[in-house]
Structure formats: structure tokens, C-alpha cells
């Protein structure tokens, strides 16, 4: 409660409001030992959450711990986090696509989602209301059942602040990776403001939407993005701005800048790829199907590892659909309970993995900056081709 009061005071919140859903994010690489101790202290004395609370991915898939030779020191830490979460009453979903597997707020619901990507997804796609709270606030809110009313909880703070005209980009040819590169470039320009996108295709694929939103929160810190015609509160530009929209756009991104972002996201210069890893955010079943189709009849290069990170639910679906077997025969490992941005890199690095290819700009940023991995960023197709040849096949 003290955390919530201090947090509320800092933003002049007038009152606490009840919340319907919480999601918490951290695993060992970000928590560190100090964070585990903080969680354990919170769990001591029988503190429990009072709101439906789910949890982001962990470090390794417990069903593959032996096979992957996960060191005891990591097993012990993951176990301690798991036990603290269970004791707190958190649902151990270990997924970052919790909105695909049950934690689905409704339009207008007040929620506390720590996990910058899914938080901006909740605000922008579902129309639920969450600030960029962070785990400590989200956990405190889950225990208290309420959150200070400030920022994006208030309708007057959800109005667009700047117009971005995507109309001069070749969007007909855009795949998810292009939207990620676009998000990378724009995040720096947008910062903490609320952007309104005009001229995006109204039938924009959900993977493109996710790609754009999840990357905007890596180079920027926006909590809400109005995609005119897609975001529930932005059926029109007028609705997004809550007034007459500006006559001219503040940012009109060009393809040149998106191309430059592609080069910025990749940090590697070495062409030999040790690992191709998908799943930041964790792969949906459609993404797994796409990867499997691209790989059909081909084999992963013997010196390259190929990982698909997903949730336990999607992995179970893969098994049921025969995808697990067919992917395995191509040389692909499907891991559950982990994401491609953080957890696995800790032990993969210790096992000699250095150069990795990803279709996630977000994953590339964290793999490089948190774990010192050399990364290549490209489309799903380019990553799959690189896994087959063992060398980076995308743009450099």
C-alpha cells in the first residue's frame, strides 16, 4: 500500500480505483538475487493477491531442464521465484501472451500490466486501461486490488498527442518485421507521448500490430498508441485526438528511415549463425504454423540451433496437431514457459552461443544489451533460411 500511495502522490492521483486484472513480468535475469529476496519478503506472512494475476515467462522449460543441462544454480532460483509466486497466489502462466490464454480484460477495464509490450497492447488493441506500472507497482496493486487513478486510467489523458502519417510507406508489402523496424525508428521520436497513426491498412494483420506496438516500447516509453480504425477509442482521427486532428502530421516516416532501423537493430557482423530463436513475444500457434510451413521438407544446419519459444498452451496445441514431431524432425526445439528475449540467453551464452538471428527487434535489443549476444534481425522467412544455411540470409 505504501508503494501505491507514494506512486499515486507523485502523479497527483485523487483516489484508488479497483482493478480487474494484473500481469507481472520479471524473471531471474532481471530480478537478480536481490529481486528474488524482495519477492520472498513480500510473500512472507501470508500476503496474497486479491486480483487475477498472471506471470510472464521464466528462464527455462522445466520439462527440458535435464536435456538442456540447466545449471543447478538457475534451477534453484527459478524454483524460489515459482514458490514465492505460488505463495502469493499468482497464476503461474509463464507466458507473455496471457491475453491469448485467459487473462483478457474488457474494454474500459482498469488493469495493472507490467510488461511494456502487453501493456501497450491492452491499451491500444483491447482498450483496457493500464499505465506503465512495472512489477513492483503491479504486485502491490494485485495485493491491494486497486491502483492510483492517474495517467492512462483517466479518459482525458488517453487522447492522442501527435500525428504520424504512415501513408508514404509501401505498406502493401509490409510484413511484421517491417512494422518492427518502423516501431524501432518511431519509438525514439515518440518518447512517452501518445501517437496517433493515420493511413495504416484497416485490415492490418495482428502480427503487424503486435510488431509495431511491442517495438515502440523498446526505443520509447509510450503506453498507448492510437491506430486509427483499429484501436477501439480511435475509430476516427477526431476520436483519437478528442478534438479536431492536427492539419499536418508531425512525423511522416519514409522507407529510408525504416531501412536504417533494420541496420541499427542488428548488432552482429559475423555471418555464421549459432542460434535462430523465435518467440519475443512468445509465438502464437499461427506463427508456429508459418515457421513449420517454411521449413517443410528441409533440415536445420547441423551447427545451428533452432528454438521456438512459446507458452505451455501453444506447445500442447503443437503436440496435438503433430507440429512438435514434424518440427523436431527438421531440427527445431520447441520450448514452453520461456521467451526469446531474456531467460534462455543466460545459459545459452554459457554453452557457447554467440551469434543469434531473430525476427524480433525487441528480443534483439534485450539479447544484445542484457546478455551481450550478437544479433541479426529480419523477417521470419529470412530467419528460417538462415537456420537452414547456417549463415545470415537477411539484410545486413
Amino acid at each position, binding site marked *: 500500500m505504501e*508503494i501505491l500511495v507514494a506512486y499515486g502522490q507523485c502523479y497527483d492521483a485523487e483516489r484508488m480505483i479497483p482493478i480487474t486484472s494484473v500481469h507481472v513480468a520479471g524473471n531471474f535475469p532481471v530480478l537478480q538475487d536481490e*529481486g528474488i529476496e524482495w519477492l520472498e519478503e513480500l510473500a512472507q506472512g501470508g500476503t496474497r493477491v486479491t486480483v487475477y494475476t498472471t506471470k510472464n515467462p521464466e528462464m527455462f522449460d522445466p520439462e527440458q531442464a535435464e536435456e538442456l543441462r540447466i545449471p543447478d544454480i538457475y534451477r534453484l532460483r527459478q524454483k524460489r521465484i515459482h514458490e514465492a509466486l505460488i505463495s502469493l497466489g499468482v497464476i503461474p502462466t509463464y507466458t507473455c501472451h496471457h491475453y491469448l490464454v485467459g487473462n483478457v480484460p474488457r474494454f474500459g477495464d482498469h488493469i495493472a500490466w*507490467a510488461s511494456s509490450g502487453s501493456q501497450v497492447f491492452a491499451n491500444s488493441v483491447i482498450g483496457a486501461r493500464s499505465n506503465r*506500472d512495472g512489477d513492483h507497482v503491479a504486485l502491490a496493486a494485485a495485493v491491494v486490488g486497486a491502483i492510483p487513478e492517474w495517467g492512462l486510467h483517466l479518459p482525458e489523458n488517453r487522447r492522442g498527442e501527435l500525428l504520424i502519417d504512415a501513408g508514404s510507406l509501401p505498406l502493401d508489402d509490409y510484413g511484421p518485421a517491417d512494422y518492427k523496424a518502423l516501431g524501432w525508428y518511431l519509438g525514439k521520436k515518440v518518447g512517452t507521448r501518445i501517437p496517433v497513426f493515420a493511413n495504416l491498412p484497416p485490415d492490418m494483420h495482428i502480427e503487424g500490430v503486435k510488431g509495431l506496438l511491442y517495438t515502440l516500447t523498446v526505443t520509447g516509453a509510450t503506453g498507448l498508441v492510437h491506430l486509427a480504425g483499429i484501436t477501439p477509442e480511435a475509430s476516427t482521427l477526431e476520436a483519437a485526438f478528442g478534438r479536431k486532428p492536427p492539419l499536418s502530421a508531425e512525423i511522416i516516416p519514409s522507407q529510408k528511415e525504416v531501412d536504417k532501423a533494420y541496420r541499427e537493430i542488428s548488432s552482429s557482423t559475423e555471418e555464421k549463425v549459432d542460434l535462430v530463436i523465435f518467440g519475443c513475444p512468445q509465438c502464437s500457434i499461427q506463427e508456429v504454423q508459418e515457421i513449420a510451413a517454411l521449413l517443410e521438407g528441409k533440415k536445420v544446419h547441423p551447427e545451428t540451433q533452432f528454438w521456438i519459444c512459446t507458452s505451455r498452451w501453444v506447445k500442447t496445441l503443437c503436440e496435438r496437431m503433430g507440429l512438435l514431431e514434424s518440427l523436431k524432425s527438421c531440427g527445431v526445439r520447441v520450448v514452453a514457459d520461456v521467451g526469446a528475449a531474456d531467460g534462455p540467453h543466460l545459459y545459452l551464452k554459457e554453452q557457447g552461443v554467440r551469434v543469434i538471428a531473430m525476427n524480433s527487434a525487441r528480443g534483439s*535489443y534485450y539479447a544484445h544489451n542484457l546478455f551481450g549476444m550478437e544479433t541479426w534481425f529480419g523477417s521470419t522467412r529470412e530467419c528460417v533460411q538462415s537456420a537452414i544455411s547456417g549463415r545470415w540470409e537477411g539484410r545486413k
Partner: protein
Amino acid sequence: MIKIAARPVTKGVAEGEAIVSHMPISFTGGMDPETGMIREPGHDLEGRSVAGKILVFPTGKGSTTGSWQFYAAYKRGHAPKGIINVRAEGVVAVSAIITNTPMVHELEKDPLQLIKTGDFVRINADEGFVEIESKSGDEKD
């Protein structure tokens, strides 16, 4: 000595040498909790430590797990002593709250213009002001 009104995020008083960035900071991935070093490639503080300093920067960015990394840095003695933001953002604010780090934002004048790396800065988050002693003859950045 210049005195400027500021809005407190937390309470307390901190003073020391300023380190100023003109770019947003992500504590996850952007700062090494082992050393307090900024490690984001291309960042204007890349390779420089914020440990024990008064950290002045525009706002936060990036992962909301940043408060864990800040907490770990704090426990290891590598966190900044105080924080001045142009505009506080949730992750940085809660990092300061859980570590009792004095923090202010929304200063009457732009702190990025007024404060230079190496200046002596005092944050008074109890009363809501910042004092700056310019070390302009002895610039370090």
C-alpha cells in the same frame, strides 16, 4: 548557486556530482546493475557509471522490469544517489520509490539546459527544489 522549484516523486535529500544524459534511459538492458555503467550502444552515457551520482535525464523508456534492475544495482551500491527527470515515467518513479532514492521532476526550468555533468547538485525532495552549483570551469563531459 541556483535554486529551482521541482515536483517531488519521492522524499529525502541527496547531493553529489551530476551526470547528465540528454537521452531516455532503460534500466533493463541499458544499465549494468553490477557496475552502474550505462551500456546501451550509442547512448550518450555509454561506458559511464551513474553509481553514486545525481542522475539527470529526460525520462525513462523500455522494459517495465527496469525497477528490478535498479533495485539490484541499489542493493549492490551501484545505483545513482538521486534522480532528476524532465518528466517522470512509471518505471523510473517506482525504482526511486522502492529504494527511497530522492527524485524530482517537472522543474521550473529545463534541468538538461541548466545542469552539466560534473556540477554539484542537491535534490531536496522533501521541500521540492533543486540547487545547482555550476562547475563550468571544470567541465567533465
